[in-house]
């Protein structure tokens, strides 16, 4: 009986959370309180079952969020100082930025976050094995290129086409990491340099690919033909029977969030993840204890490539419906920041991707309504990244000046590779 009630409450909360997420992502803000209520329910059940554990998990969450929070505050203060010194009102600017990013242009935040979650996951997943896939941008290009080709040339019914596009793109963008992975294993060549070089190669070749896929069209130069509508991802406005949903929003974001949870599950609940993290923490120890380190490195880099590829596919099938020759596209690079902010935790990556997406779209809104250029957000992003990643700075300040001893005693070195 008791079990049944728990199950029902859990089920109910899950439904509420799912609905809340979908509504929230479709810019219906009623979704946010629903989400919170749902999570609250689940936490209460946890609390009832095992008080100590529930409190502990809350504590450790607080601890994990502490540094990012401080980093955010510190960098906002510095941004304010910069704004004041260049003659703007910091409070107004930040208010506009936040209003733009997280309320007014929320839909564009969601659209920005979608590819960032994937690339962030790609880089973050590799972090866990102590690898730095800095060239995710390259695998992203491969993903877009393959998805475009399939979308244009493969006549298939919708669902199958989408599945094929995903599978083939993921496979090929994963294979794009085979040579860096092989070199890493066989010669010890650092993946930072090799994946970076591969990214440069991909970006050189992307122009050629765009030409090949119909980019000669004088009207849409630097753009390929559009992919067939069969390959388009479902729009959120078709999924949710409500008004005022931006027509560009699509289910890509749901796929992204789901992928993040799958990554989390793989890393923390399966034996593969157990081995990946062991390699990340102590390569020699893992090897001595029978884990095939080379194989893990190989597989991790390939999974990482596939995740970066997913970013490209989702972007093509969901939003752009074509590939653009655009050298300033930077989801791969921004993915580095997103992954670093969350120190490689897949769930954290969802939030940092939304933060980054929000800052970007907030910047665009800011530029529309004021005379401040959006590049202020680039500085802001740089500062946030620095003050979150260089977490030792707080310990440093503490030992130098002896303030707030207790607060910072738990900070150790950063856990990223």
């Amino acid at each position, binding site marked *: 009986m008791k079990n049944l009630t728990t199950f029902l409450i859990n089920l109910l909360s899950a439904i509420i959370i799912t609905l809340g997420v979908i509504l929230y992502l479709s810019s219906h803000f009623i979704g946010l309180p629903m989400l919170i209520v749902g999570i609250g329910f689940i936490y209460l059940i946890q609390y009832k079952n095992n008080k100590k554990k529930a409190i502990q998990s809350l504590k450790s969450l607080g601890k994990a969020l502490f540094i990012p929070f401080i980093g955010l505050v510190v960098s906002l203060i510095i941004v304010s100082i910069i704004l004041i010194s*260049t003659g703007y009102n910091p409070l107004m600017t930040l208010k506009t930025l936040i209003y733009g990013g997280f309320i007014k242009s929320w839909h564009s935040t969601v659209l920005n976050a979608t590819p960032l979650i994937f690339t962030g996951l790609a880089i973050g997943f590799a972090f866990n094995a102590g690898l*730095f896939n*800095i060239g995710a941008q390259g695998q992203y290009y491969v993903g877009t290129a393959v998805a475009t080709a399939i979308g244009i040339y493969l006549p298939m019914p919708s669902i199958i086409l989408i599945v094929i596009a995903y599978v083939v793109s993921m496979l090929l963008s994963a294979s794009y990491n085979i*040579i860096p992975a092989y*070199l890493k294993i*066989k*010669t*010890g*060549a*650092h993946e*930072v*340099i*090799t994946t*970076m*070089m*591969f990214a*440069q*190669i991909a970006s*050189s*070749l*992307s*122009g*050629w690919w765009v*030409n090949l896929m119909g980019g000669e069209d004088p009207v849409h130069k630097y753009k390929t033909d559009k992919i067939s509508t069969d390959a388009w991802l479902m729009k959120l406005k078709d999924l949710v029977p409500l008004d005022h949903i931006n027509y560009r929003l699509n289910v890509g974001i749901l796929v992204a969030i789901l992928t993040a949870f799958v990554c989390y599950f793989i890393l923390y609940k399966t034996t593969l993840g157990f081995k990946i993290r062991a390699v990340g923490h102590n390569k020699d120890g893992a090897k001595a204890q029978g884990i095939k380190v080379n194989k893990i490195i190989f597989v991790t880099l390939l999974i990482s490539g596939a995740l970066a590829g997913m970013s490209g596919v989702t972007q093509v099938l969901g939003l752009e419906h074509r590939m653009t020759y655009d*050298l*300033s596209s930077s989801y791969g*690079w921004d993915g*580095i*920041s997103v992954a*670093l902010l969350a120190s490689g935790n897949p769930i954290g990556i969802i939030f940092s991707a939304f933060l980054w997406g929000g800052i970007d779209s907030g910047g665009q809104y800011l530029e529309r309504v004021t005379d401040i*250029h959006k*590049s*202020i957000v*680039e*500085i802001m*992003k*740089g500062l946030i*990244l*620095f003050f979150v*990643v*260089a977490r*030792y*700075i707080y310990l*440093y300040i503490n030992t130098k000046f002896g303030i707030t001893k207790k607060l910072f005693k738990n900070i150790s*070195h*950063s856990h*990223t*590779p």
Partner: protein
Amino acid sequence: MNEILSLFDTQLFTTTIDFSTPIVLAAIGGVLCERGGIVNIGLEGFMNFSAFFAVVGTIATGNPWIGLVSGVIAGMIFSLIHGFATIHLHLDHVVSGAVINILSAGLTQYLLLIIYHTAGQTASVPLSLHDMKYAIPILSSIPYVGEIFFNQTPIVYIMMISVVIFTIFLNRTKLGLHLKVSGEHPMALETLGISVFKMRYLGVILSGLLCGLAGSYLSIETGSSYSENMTSGRGFIALAAVIAGRWSPIGALVASVVFGFINALQYKLQIIPALKFFPTEIFSALPYILSILAIAFAVKKSRPPKASGEDFIVERID
């Protein structure tokens, strides 16, 4: 056949030097930094930052020499961030380097706007270092070689001299020996009462200086303005040159010149009618493919500085 021979004219070699110079400079910077124990993937960011400030200095004063100095100083100051983050804040060197690159792009974008109220590109400098081209008397009149090596612009000469200077520095001087030890066995240095931190800062700042020269070369010597993303991956090729050159200035020089040569050659190849069939993009990918090959073959035999990339902590608790 004639077509192939005609490829190898003086122009090919001057272009080679043109391409190699910034890579050589940045690569020597990378060598010094890594020999001191700090891995530096932020070379790209340093270069970008100083390229911008070289233009700022030149436009403000009209004098490219002052531009050069400001570019170099900017590079050195910017390198201090990397130094502080890795040495004092014990941040992972690769992570810090990645952050440096991101920070550099953001900062220049914003400053471009604040200072010149434009996005993307600055105005041209009134006078560039290219106008300071100087032919060394006698030497420059040697046929073929003279034109290539001794009728050059200032930073190219600086590049040639710095290869010599830093080779001597590493192998013959006290400071060079200390720098090498701080990258091989920092504790050995510290126990002798020589500060590892200072040596590592020295390495980082020298790399800032050299990247400053490299960046200035791009914006006020071969170019005449700063545009976003103008370093376009050269910092990473320099990193590959560091490895392929086995962590020595001469090796870095050789590796970079090979990259420069391939790059110069690919431009030439693009014009050959017989090769028109290949898309030009394949040629522009050539240098990167070459770097990967170079790394693939060089890495196994070369031995990086032992403690490079390792955090150094002296427990000092009062």
